[in-house]
Each structure stands twice: as structure tokens, then as C-alpha cells.
């Protein structure tokens, strides 16, 4: 056993001509990975090479085993004139020539089983079944082939098929070197077929993965649409009742507000899951635009005034000025980040506390700081904050009932990073929390 081009060959190629021929074929075959093209290239290249060496070969046929179907199947034949004549005269198409593995009189099957090289002067030995003897011999006459050699194609210890080399000369006229060359061809064929098979399998697996990925995306898109629809109806009707002209008892309003909040969380949860699935797939799209960060913060703070009011928390963005800090990234997504930070701050700040939002310019960066007077976060919990499902234990605090998916800050981090910025936390238990993020400013 020797190595050729870093791979194992079963035999040793001897002469310079043999090596050159092998090298040419190997190079040709390695250019392609598509299975159908590789198998055709194999037989064509070998036929060309043998013809070039004027060794009197009429046709080269590659036969591979299909163990599942229990047959030896012809997969390619050299595009030589003899081969064309055979096919033109034959009653069966090339694809139809399948030899059952149980046909143990057939030389191809014999070689496949015992791995021995065979030679025949009678084509009934290689074509029957599926052909009848007369048909096999008629075709041999058309092709002017005197002898056919059947070589096993070995992949390690396993035979994967055979190569049939058909000669217009007697076997006794074959030199040792020629036999060596043919043996080496079959070794290369085994490598090429092996590679092409693996590639075809990979390709199929890849197609399957792409298909699954597409299905997953469609499923998430449809599921999120269908989950959002009823949440929207519930929220809108609850809102109508809560804000209706008819004055309702305080307890009823409070109960309905809880239901409204749950509808709101459901819608938010769907949004978060959709975002996370996009992040994981690397498909969170950023639509860049230039915008005024101050103005965005003022708008966002306004949107959350009502929520802060209900919670009896003061939300102060009074120091934020518009027209001072400009950035270029996805405005909607930064809106999502600021909204999330303000919402969290309100959530974790007890009644009577304050949430302050500030924007400033810091060494070429626009910095947003959301400070609360809430429960604070222990050092050991801070690193988990921005991880997926990284909720921290608030059970011992007065906001212990606060709910959330633990996805919000993970999404914020990814959005800020996609905007070439960074996000972090500064906090001590019972001393409030500062959430900060920076974006490159214009």
C-alpha cells in the first residue's frame, strides 16, 4: 500500500508515463465534485488517456453497487465512438443495464464479491442478465471489442463497484505497465467516487437544512402573526372598557388593567422570541439612517410616562436636549433598546422612586444613561443580565412579582453591538442601577 497525493493507493504506479497519466486524471477529477459530472469525467479522462497512450481501448464503463436496490448499476460510459456504437445498437438504454447482485454468474457480480480481476472474451459474462446472451454477443460484435477486463473498485476493504475496460486487442498483448496503469486508475476512481458521494450527501444535507430553516422562519412568522392577532383584540377591547365614558369601580379598572398588562406582555413576548430567532439565525436586519438620539429619547420617555405614572415612579428626561447628538443606525431598533431600558427601570423601581434618562457626548460616542433608584443588582448577577434568559432573582424584593422573559437585555445587547456600540450596567444592591449604552456619534 502506497501513498499518492497524500492518499492511500492499493498499488504502486511504476513508470513516469503512468504517473503523468494518473496525475492528469486526478487533476481533472478533483476539479469537480458533482457526482454525475465526476463519474462521467472519470471514464472520459481514462479513455482519453488510454487512447493517448495508443493502448487500443474501445470503451471504459463505471459500474457502482446500489446495495439498497441490490444491483450493480452502470453510472457512466466513456464517450468514445465504440461506446456510442454499442448504445446505438442496443435495445436497452444505458441506465437500464442493472445486474442483480444475486446473478452470481455475471463477472461484474463475481468481481464485486471476491474482488478478483477478471477477463472475458464473451460479453454474455458481463451483460447477462439483464441482457440475453444473443443480445450481449451482438453488441460485442458491433463494438469490435475482443476482451473486457473487470476490475474491482476498492474503498478500503470494501468493494463499491467495478470498472470495465474493453480492448480491441488480446489480453496477452497487455504489458505489465499497462496493467499497473489500469489498476491505478481504479484506485483513483475509488477516491473520486468516495469524495463525490460525500459531497453529494453534504449537498443533500445542506439543501435539507436550508429547507428546514425556511420552514422554521415561516413557522415563526405565521405563529407570531397568529399569536399577536388575539393579543391585539384583547388589548384594544380592554383599553376601550378601561377608558370608556362609563365610570367603573376602581377595583374593576385595576383588574382590567392587569388583564391589559398581560395582553401587552404576550405581544411583547412574541416580539422578543421573533427577535431572538432572527439574532440566532444572524438575520436581524439593521436599516441604517441618521437620526437625533436626543429626540428619540424624549419621544420614548413620553411614551413611558403613563406607565411610570401608574407605578407612581417619577420618569425624568428633562435634561435631554434634541439636536445635540446625532447617530447613524436603525432608529426603530434603538427605540426598542431605550424603551426596554426605561421599562425595566420603571419595573424594578418601587413606588416613589425615580428613573432618570440622560444623553451626552463622550469622546466621539453618544452615551445614553438610564438611572433608577430601584432594588439594584448584585455584582454576581450583573454578568448574567445580558445573556439569553438571564433573569436575576428578585424574589426577596418588593418587585419580586415582576415578570419577564429574560430576553429583553440580550436583544438590546445584540442591537447595540450591531450598531457598533456597547452596553453595560453599573449597580449595587439597594442603591439603584445605571444602565448605559454608547453608540458612535456623527
Amino acid at each position, binding site marked *: 500500500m502506497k501513498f499518492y497525493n497524500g492518499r492511500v493507493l492499493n498499488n504502486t504506479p511504476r513508470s513516469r508515463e503512468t504517473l503523468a497519466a494518473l496525475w492528469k486524471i486526478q487533476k481533472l477529477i478533483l476539479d469537480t465534485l458533482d457526482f454525475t459530472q465526476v463519474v462521467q469525467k472519470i471514464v472520459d479522462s481514462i479513455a482519453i488517456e488510454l487512447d493517448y497512450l495508443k493502448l487500443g481501448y474501445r470503451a471504459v464503463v463505471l459500474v457502482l453497487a446500489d446495495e439498497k436496490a441490490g444491483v450493480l448499476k452502470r453510472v457512466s460510459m466513456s464517450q468514445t465512438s465504440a461506446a456510442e456504437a454499442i448504445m446505438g445498437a442496443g435495445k436497452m438504454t444505458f441506465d437500464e443495464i442493472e445486474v442483480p447482485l444475486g446473478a452470481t454468474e455475471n463477472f461484474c457480480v463475481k468481481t464485486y464479491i471476491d474482488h478478483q480481476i477478471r477477463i472475458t472474451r464473451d460479453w454474455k459474462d458481463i451483460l447477462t442478465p439483464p441482457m440475453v446472451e444473443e443480445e450481449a454477443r451482438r453488441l460485442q460484435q458491433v463494438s469490435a471489442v475482443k476482451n473486457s477486463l473487470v476490475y474491482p473498485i476498492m474503498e478500503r476493504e470494501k468493494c463499491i463497484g467495478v470498472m470495465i475496460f474493453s480492448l480491441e486487442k488480446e489480453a496477452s498483448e497487455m504489458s505489465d505497465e499497462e496493467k499497473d496503469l489500469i489498476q491505478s486508475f481504479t484506485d483513483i476512481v475509488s477516491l473520486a467516487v468516495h469524495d463525490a458521494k460525500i459531497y453529494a450527501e453534504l449537498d443533500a444535507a445542506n439543501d435539507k437544512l436550508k429547507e428546514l430553516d425556511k420552514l422554521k422562519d415561516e413557522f415563526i*412568522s405565521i405563529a407570531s*402573526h*397568529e399569536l*399577536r*392577532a388575539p393579543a391585539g*383584540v384583547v*388589548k*384594544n*377591547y380592554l383599553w376601550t372598557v378601561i377608558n370608556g365614558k362609563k365610570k367603573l369601580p376602581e377595583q374593576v379598572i385595576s383588574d382590567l388593567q392587569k388583564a391589559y398588562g398581560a395582553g401587552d406582555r404576550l405581544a411583547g413576548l412574541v416580539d422578543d422570541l*421573533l427577535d431572538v430567532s432572527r439574532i440566532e439565525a444572524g438575520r436581524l436586519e439593521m436599516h441604517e439612517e441618521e437620526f437625533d438620539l436626543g429626540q428619540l429619547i424624549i419621544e420614548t420617555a413620553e411614551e413611558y410616562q403613563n406607565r411610570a405614572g401608574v407605578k407612581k415612579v417619577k420618569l425624568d428626561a428633562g435634561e435631554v436636549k434634541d439636536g445635540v447628538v446625532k447617530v447613524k443606525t436603525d432608529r426603530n431598533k434603538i427605540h426598542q433598546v431605550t424603551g426596554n431600558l426605561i421599562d425595566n427601570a420603571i419595573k424594578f423601581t418601587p413606588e416613589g422612586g425615580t428613573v432618570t434618562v440622560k444623553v451626552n457626548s463622550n469622546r466621539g460616542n453618544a452615551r445614553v444613561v438610564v438611572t433608577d433608584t430601584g432594588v439594584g443588582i448584585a455584582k454576581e448577577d450583573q454578568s448574567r443580565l445580558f445573556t439569553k434568559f438571564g433573569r436575576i432573582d428578585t424574589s426577596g424584593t418588593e418587585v419580586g412579582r415582576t415578570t419577564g422573559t429574560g430576553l429583553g437585555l440580550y436583544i438590546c445587547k445584540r442591537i447595540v453591538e450591531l450598531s457598533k456600540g456597547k452596553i453595560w450596567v453599573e449597580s449595587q444592591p439597594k442603591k439603584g442601577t445605571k444602565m448605559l449604552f454608547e453608540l458612535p456619534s456623527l
Partner: protein
Amino acid sequence: MIASRMTPKKILLVDDDRDLVDLWKRFLVEAGYEVDIAYDGREGLGLALKGGYALVVLDAMMPRMDGLGVLEQMNSADPRPNNGPVVMISNLDRDSLSAKAVKLGALGCITKSNTNPAAFVSEVKKFLTQVG
């Protein structure tokens, strides 16, 4: 709150989510608008092609013809119907919808589950102000 004392602006709401669209119509009428409703895309297209709407609000996912389909048909109609701008509404998130809709000339998108009747009315007002 009357949008205009002279001639109320006409708005076309096209959405198969009947519960929601009926509720929004109520609030828009209260705010002084005249509102027509269609419960599927084809019916909506029929009304939109007649023209006369200051704003056309199209749901993205509907039976018979989706919102983007209606918008495409409105764009290619000859003569073009005499309508104001088109706004998309959807439960799909903005990302997947807005780029396509804006390309087709929509003024903006509203995510249904993130709104309430008052917010919806103020969005409608905002879009109407944008076009004067």
C-alpha cells in the same frame, strides 16, 4: 374632536380582523372621520379603486388578496384612483413588512398588537397631517 367641520375626511379600513376594525371605526367616527370598511383584500381593492379616500389603511395578511397585493393593484390601476396615502397595518412585525410596503409607496406601518384605539386614531391623524 371633529377633524373637519366642513367635509369629513374619508378613510378606508381594509382588514379581515372584524372585531378590531369595527372597534377602530367606532373611534375614527367619533373623531369626526367618515369610515368605509372592507373585510378582505378584493373587496377593499374594489372600494379603493372608486377613489375619494384621504387615507387607505391596509392589513398585510388577508384572505382573497393580501395588503401588498391590493397596494400593487392600486398602483397599476389606470387611471389611478384619486386617493390619499396608504398605510399598512399588520401583526407581522415591522421589519418584514415595512421595507416592501414603503417600496410600493406606503407611507408607514402600524403594528396592530402594539396599538390601542386612541393610539390608532392619533396615528391616522399623524399620517393625514404628513400629507397635508
